[in-house]
């Protein structure tokens, strides 16, 4: 039928990916993020004028308005980095497990981080911010391994629904453990309850500085895994045939995502659904190539969390709604929609 030509065909350019489209979308989401960050600084329970915002951005906090804006700056930064961490973490998790339902919240990994933090505070007197981050990351890692092991039991290995069920069950169990630990401890219960909802309200630059190194390593490890995830997406056998060391690649990528969601949980509490929703939306925009999908998921995750935080300040005026509540409101229907599709196929 055909003859194999060894010279490259002249239409190599035709085969090139649709780069311009993706680049356009990149500009759109970056623009959106900048706008949302602006909104996050400008909008709050106290109305402030432009002059006060500009003055506060310049470092002044003399008037009440300026002081309010000054408080919103670290909050905005935290929303951006936590959102980016959760979006990227979800995209990596979906790639590692080839599971469209994978998400740090759905798989119970955030709850693992939470339990470790709460137990650390209640039992071991963990007070330094860094030790809390370490506890969160350890808890996240243990939960990830546990849920994956449980979800892999039985026939067919870790199918999407089995993994999600294992995650949900683990989440429920961990949540009641957290309550059981915190409830008798009048000294910490209030903090634990508000932290457990997930929010960026009390952000300080010191707090952000504590999680920043962990997040940076997590971002780097995750982004470097992009090409490996592209190979893993074709199945373990083919990935190995392409020269991928499958177990190593999967372990490294999983480590990156666990670092990200553990550190994000330490900083802002267990915020769910960002890692679930964002990668699916990004796949619609830029396709399944992880070299694009991962950075996009980070930026879009930052958009979602910043946007949800701003929305939480608008809808509940004069008080605020925590972002954890809003992301759950946005994410839960989305989760149902994915499950209800004809068949939940492996990615």
């Amino acid at each position, binding site marked *: *039928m*055909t*003859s*194999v*030509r*060894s*010279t*490259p*065909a002249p*239409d*190599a*350019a*035709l*085969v*090139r*990916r*649709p780069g311009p489209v993706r680049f356009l979308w990149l500009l759109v989401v970056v623009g959106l993020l900048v706008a949302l960050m602006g909104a996050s600084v400008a909008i709050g329970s106290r109305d402030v004028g432009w002059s006060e915002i500009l003055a506060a951005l310049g470092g002044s906090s003399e008037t009440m308005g300026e002081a309010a804006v000054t408080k919103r700056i670290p909050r905005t930064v935290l929303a951006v980095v936590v959102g980016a961490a959760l979006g990227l973490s979800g995209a990596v998790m979906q790639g590692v497990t*080839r599971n469209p339902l994978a998400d740090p919240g759905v798989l119970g990994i955030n709850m693992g981080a939470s339990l470790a933090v709460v137990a650390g505070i209640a039992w071991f007197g963990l007070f330094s911010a860094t030790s809390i981050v370490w506890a969160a990351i350890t808890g996240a890692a243990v939960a990830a391994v546990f849920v994956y092991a449980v979800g892999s039991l039985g026939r067919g290995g870790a199918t999407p629904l089995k993994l999600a069920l294992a995650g949900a069950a683990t989440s429920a169990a961990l949540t009641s453990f957290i309550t059981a630990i915190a409830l008798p401890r009048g000294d910490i219960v209030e903090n634990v309850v508000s932290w457990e909802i997930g929010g960026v309200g009390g952000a300080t630059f010191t707090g952000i500085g504590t999680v920043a190194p962990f997040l940076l390593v997590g971002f780097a490890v995750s982004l*470097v895994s992009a*090409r490996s995830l*592209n*190979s893993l*997406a*074709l*199945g373990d*056998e*083919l990935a*190995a*045939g*392409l*020269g*991928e*060391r499958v177990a190593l690649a999967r372990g490294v990528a999983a480590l990156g995502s666990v670092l990200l969601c553990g550190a994000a949980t330490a900083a802002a509490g267990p915020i769910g659904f960002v890692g679930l929703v964002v990668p699916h939306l990004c*796949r619609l925009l830029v*396709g*399944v*190539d992880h070299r694009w999908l991962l950075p996009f998921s980070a930026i879009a995750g930052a958009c979602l969390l910043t946007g949800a935080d701003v929305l939480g300040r608008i809808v509940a005026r004069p008080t605020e709604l925590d972002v954890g509540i809003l992301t759950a409101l946005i994410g839960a229907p989305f989760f149902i929609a994915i499950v209800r599709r004809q068949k939940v*196929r*492996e*990615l």
Partner: protein
Amino acid sequence: MTATHSLAAEDLTLAYGDRTVIEGLDLLVPPGRITAVVGANACGKSTLLRSMSRLLSPRSGRVLLDGKAVHRLPAKELARTLGLLPQSPIAPEGITVADLVGRGRHPHQRVFSRWSTEDDAAVAAALDATETTPLADRAVDELSGGQRQRVWIAMALAQQTDVLLLDEPTTFLDVAHQIEVLDLLTDLNRARGTTIVMVLHDLNLAARYADHLVALSGGRIHAAGEPADVLTEECVRAVFGLDSQVIVDPTSGKPLMLPMGRHHTAPRADVLQGTPGS
């Protein structure tokens, strides 16, 4: 243009847990030729292929590529010489043909290296060779089974390996597409000298397309060599436990196996006499 590589198994024993699948097997793959591995279900054909591409570590013995044990070679280095197309690879939902074929370039890329013009040329040539260039921007999900198989082969071609292992590349294809795929592999072998090892279910297609036929039975090689020497009535009985008649295929001159079941085996007199039936 291609260097020939020697691929061999030496006293190879393969097992899943307690179950030994291949035992003390020696195999020499003729370089630059097409080798087909046949055998009954669960005789270890795919297992042998998996081990040759180092997906499975041998219990004992070695698989040698150019005299070096494949299980000791760096993964990417091996993947630049030896490619594998497994039986059921996964196409991520919504992936385009060009993207999928491009992933065959993985072993030629480093973590931070950019997509190069060399990569572009390899992908374009692979699409061209498999006549899938018009499909480049289509989603793999939308393609027919035959088109999809050609796309997977294009991905394997983009990997630009001199040795290509294929696990039942014709499964799930209708007869026309089976022939199409085997013709394509033959083209590849003739034009580039690519050494091809494939597991095939269909004995007659294996005998027709292979230069070297390997019949596996009970984890050992029952016979290996020219198809005309290997595919005999005795061999079919020993390997498959099936009575048959082997004749010369009038279209190819290769052996053609006609299975004999318990029914429909008495030739009609009019057929034997060569007169048209009533």
